[in-house]
């Protein structure tokens, strides 16, 4: 507590006045004749005590009255914590405005962001002119303090909701650090938030709590602009089964529809753009029964399937045809590509050796090749073959090759091709340890290990096996018995294992070469279960373990052919990466944004991915470049989609008490309305004036004194 005019506290000394008056100028009672005095006398003593008590009470009230009056005139003010020792110092204020898409929630015809900026504007008007104000949004780092209040006001009015945002707590923590730098100032952070659980998760609260603890002078005001019971219909994150489709393969996308609006059912639509990324057409719609709030924990599932997509890049949108307060989560976007099957060359000693692999990659049961088209040839023919037709070459249990063949394979890999070496009983140490062969192999062959073991990759996070990760629990690794395998020594520096055996020895190794990839497996995948004259190296192809074999072969081949483009859907604000085909040569391209704006961009030479970092618009982006159809290496027609992660529009609210509990005690306040917020500003800038309250007490005491005195000294007429 402090006083605006502490000098006037001296007035408390005036309480001496009634005391002196009481002692010196005691009021004489009125003298009256009264013959029946004998009846008065009998009970006089108790009455006299009562009179005395009342006298003192009256004196006390008068002293209190004077003291209170002096106290009120000294204008006591209460100040919030975090201001100790800085009474009267100017303010340093950071206005942190949550401008996430969630703040576009419309209530009473106003978005939450409108509400926040309006309150912030009104608070700005209340701040003294010498206040240092920083206006901070989630889009960019807290820059610094505005030059003056006018600039701050302009920045505030220019705030727009952005999909590319950083976590609120992180930005708030930065703002706390920013104001804390102003050491001579009183430091306050006003945080405009809808108190949604999306922004205020456990981790965010910890960040904020830590920031507050680190800066003990900063006071945080959370200004709640949220709506108490928000209604919203939203789409969950899209699950696209395959982003790269082959001709004939159908597009499958599914998502969840969550609504707490109740009442009518909702229409969900799938819109697909044409080949050139131009106008979208509706390709499917479903009516989803409304789930009311009580059952909102079970959101409705929606799935769309589209068949017969032509080759090319296809961009689509799943849309909720509803008109709810928050529109931004009613549309989700995705991009898929339909590509022709990749050509894979299988080279074997005899055609039967390639049979298992061919069946795994391109089953004969299927009328039409999907992912791969396999061609089989013998090792003798390899030297005369033009490998550029193929995306990858798999050598199944290769024998010693000529120097030219090794070189030919290395060149092929350097150009972006994939070479798979599946070593078996035909490999010879001396031939394979030649200089040329060693350019492809991970290292010199040392010995054949005959330790019975089985394939057991420790982790499935290498891109070559990442497709298996979903089935990790159900893969019967122990049945993938391997009896014999090659061991290397002095593995080259640019080599690293993709998978190991159960005993820890490397099973599959990768070595990069130029733009391509080389994979070496230390045991064959084409070995017969019952070879003539020797024991089998493994039982990978046995029917009991056939499905992991098929999966591994397909994944490895896919990795070698570099046919998985990676994800084509990114979260807003992240850098979108579109990997190019191995043989694609792009120098510049045109990026068309969802709003139709197109810009020419230059690709970094040598980079195999195109990176787009300006992704704050939600929707489908298209990357195109010219080049004729024949000159395919220069032509580009790709795309990617930017979505808002579904959890960022979770409108469920966090109770203010929960927030305050998680933050250091007394360091944060929650304001539910403009009045609350203005009160805080008043308290912050001038302190809470107690004048009116004390004057109210003065009035009460005064009335009491008057009543008592009147009753006491009432003069007889």
């Amino acid at each position, binding site marked *: 507590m402090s006083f605006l005019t502490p000098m006037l506290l001296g007035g408390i000394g005036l309480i001496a006045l009634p005391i002196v008056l009481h002692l010196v100028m005691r*009021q*004489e*009672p*009125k*003298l*009256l*004749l*009264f*013959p*029946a*005095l*004998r*009846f*008065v*006398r*009998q*009970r*006089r003593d*108790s*009455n*006299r005590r*009562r*009179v005395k008590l*009342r006298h003192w009470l009256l004196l006390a009230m008068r002293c209190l009255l004077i003291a209170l009056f002096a106290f009120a005139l000294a204008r006591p003010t209460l100040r919030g914590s975090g201001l100790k020792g800085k009474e009267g110092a100017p303010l340093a204020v950071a206005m942190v405005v949550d401008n996430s898409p969630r703040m576009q929630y419309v209530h009473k015809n106003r978005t939450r962001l409108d509400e926040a900026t309006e309150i912030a504007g009104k608070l700005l008007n209340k701040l003294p002119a010498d206040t240092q104000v920083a206006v901070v949004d989630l889009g960019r780092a807290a820059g610094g303090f505005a030059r003056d209040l006018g600039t701050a006001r302009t920045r505030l009015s220019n705030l727009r909701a952005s999909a590319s945002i950083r976590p609120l707590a992180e930005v708030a923590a930065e703002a706390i650090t920013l104001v804390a730098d102003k050491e001579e100032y009183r430091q306050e952070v006003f945080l405009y938030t809808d108190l949604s659980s999306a922004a205020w998760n456990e981790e965010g609260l910890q960040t904020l709590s830590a920031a507050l603890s680190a800066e003990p002078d900063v006071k945080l005001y959370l200004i709640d602009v949220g709506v108490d019971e928000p209604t919203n219909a939203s789409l969950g994150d899209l699950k696209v089964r395959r982003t790269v489709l082959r001709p004939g393969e159908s597009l499958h996308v599914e998502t969840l529809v969550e609504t707490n609006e109740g009442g009518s059912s909702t229409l969900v639509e799938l819109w697909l753009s044409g080949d050139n990324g131009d106008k979208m057409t509706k390709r499917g719609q479903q009516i989803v029964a409304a789930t009311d709030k009580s059952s909102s924990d079970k959101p409705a599932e929606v799935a769309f399937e589209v068949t017969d997509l032509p080759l090319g890049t296809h961009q689509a949108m799943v849309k909720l045809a509803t008109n709810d307060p928050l529109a931004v989560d009613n549309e989700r976007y995705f991009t898929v590509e339909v590509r022709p099957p990749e050509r894979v060359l299988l080279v074997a000693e005899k055609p039967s050796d390639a049979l298992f692999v061919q069946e795994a990659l391109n089953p004969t049961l299927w009328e039409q090749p999907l992912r791969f088209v396999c061609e089989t040839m013998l090792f003798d023919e390899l030297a005369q073959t033009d490998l550029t037709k193929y995306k990858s070459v798999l050598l199944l249990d290769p024998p010693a090759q000529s120097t030219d063949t090794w070189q030919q394979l290395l060149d092929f890999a350097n150009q972006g091709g994939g070479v798979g070496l599946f070593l078996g009983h035909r490999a010879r140490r001396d031939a394979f340890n030649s200089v040329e062969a060693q350019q492809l192999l991970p290292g010199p062959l040392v010995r054949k290990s005959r330790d019975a073991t089985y394939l057991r990759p420790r982790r499935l996070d290498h891109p070559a096996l990442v497709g298996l990760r979903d089935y990790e629990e159900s893969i019967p690794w122990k049945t993938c018995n391997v009896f014999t395998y090659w061991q290397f020594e002095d593995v080259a520096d640019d080599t690293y294992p993709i998978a190991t055996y159960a005993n820890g020895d490397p099973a599959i190794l990768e070595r990069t070469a130029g733009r391509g990839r080389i994979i070496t497996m230390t045991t064959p995948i084409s070995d017969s279960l019952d070879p003539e004259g020797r024991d089998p190296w493994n039982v990978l192809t046995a029917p009991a373990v056939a499905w992991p074999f098929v999966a591994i072969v397909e994944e490895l081949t896919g990795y070698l052919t570099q046919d998985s483009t990676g994800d084509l859907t990114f979260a807003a604000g992240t850098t979108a990466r579109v990997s190019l085909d191995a043989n694609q040569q792009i120098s510049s391209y045109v990026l068309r944004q969802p709003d139709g704006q197109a810009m020419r961009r230059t690709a970094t030479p040598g980079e195999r991915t195109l990176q787009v970092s300006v992704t704050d618009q939600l929707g489908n982006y298209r990357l195109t470049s010219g080049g004729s159809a024949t000159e395919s290496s220069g032509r580009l027609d790709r795309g990617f989609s930017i979505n808002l992660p579904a959890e960022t529009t979770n409108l469920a609210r966090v109770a203010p008490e929960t927030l305050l509990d998680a933050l250091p005690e007394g360091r944060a306040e929650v304001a539910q309305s403009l009045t609350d917020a203005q009160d805080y500003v008043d308290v912050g800038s001038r302190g809470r004036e107690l004048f009116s309250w004390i004057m109210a007490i003065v009035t009460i005491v005064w009335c009491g004194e008057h009543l008592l005195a009147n*009753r*006491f*000294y*009432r*003069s*007889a007429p």
Partner: protein
Amino acid sequence: MPSTVESYLKPEVIRQISRLDLRAQFIVKGFLQGLHASPLQGFSVEFSEHRRYAPGDDPKDIDWLAFAKTDRYYVKKFEAETNITGYLAMDLSASMGYRYRQELSKFEYATCLAAALCYLMVHQNDPVGLVTFGERIVDSLAPKSKRAQIGNILSLLARLEPTDKTNVANSLNQLAAMLKHSSLVMVFSDLLEDPEPLLASLRRLRHGGHDVIVFHILDQAEVEFPFEGLVELEDPETNERLEVDADGYRADYLEEINSFRDMLGRECVKSKIDYVPLDTSMPFDHALMEYLLNRRDWG
């Protein structure tokens, strides 16, 4: 609506008349007027004889039947069947002169009442005397039933001043010793003294064969304690002073004074003494009625 005459029973009205004889007359007339309508009529006075009308007599007393027979005006004369000797015993203590807000002091009230009774008694041919006392008997007037007695008593009453200290018990003992025949002793006093000797003296009077009516006259202020705020009260007789908070004290005081009056009343009943608690705001008829009731018992 009460007649004008009856309004003279009210102290505030009677105060407007300064002559005591007139006051007495008015009070009695007002009282008798009211009495005609009451079932008590005829108890007190009986017709005795006709008398020639003289100017000054009440024309309503004219007996019109006698006029019809004789063509002369006669007025009816009334007479009690038995005569009783009345003594009006007036307290002359200084406290009797007290008044607060009321028009009449206790003494004036007592005087009016005494005058009225005197008038009433003489009117009925009852001999009436007057005794005044302070600490002891100051003055006395032997009882007579002549009409002139009214004048004597009234003139004495009119001259009295309440200045003395009081000792009712002593005075009444003195009076008891003085009285030879059974009489009706009417005591007018505020009785502000120790109750024990007082009651003893009253009982002594009663045992002496006298009928006693105690008109206990208090000021309205003494009955109601209407003071407010801090007051210092002074006893006019002893000059003793006490400072009290009137508001806080009122309840206590009222309890005290009421218990005092109740006690007196109770004790008087025990001794077959008529105790009439009065205050100066009460109309006179209450006291007069008490006298008449007593008078009837005699008859």
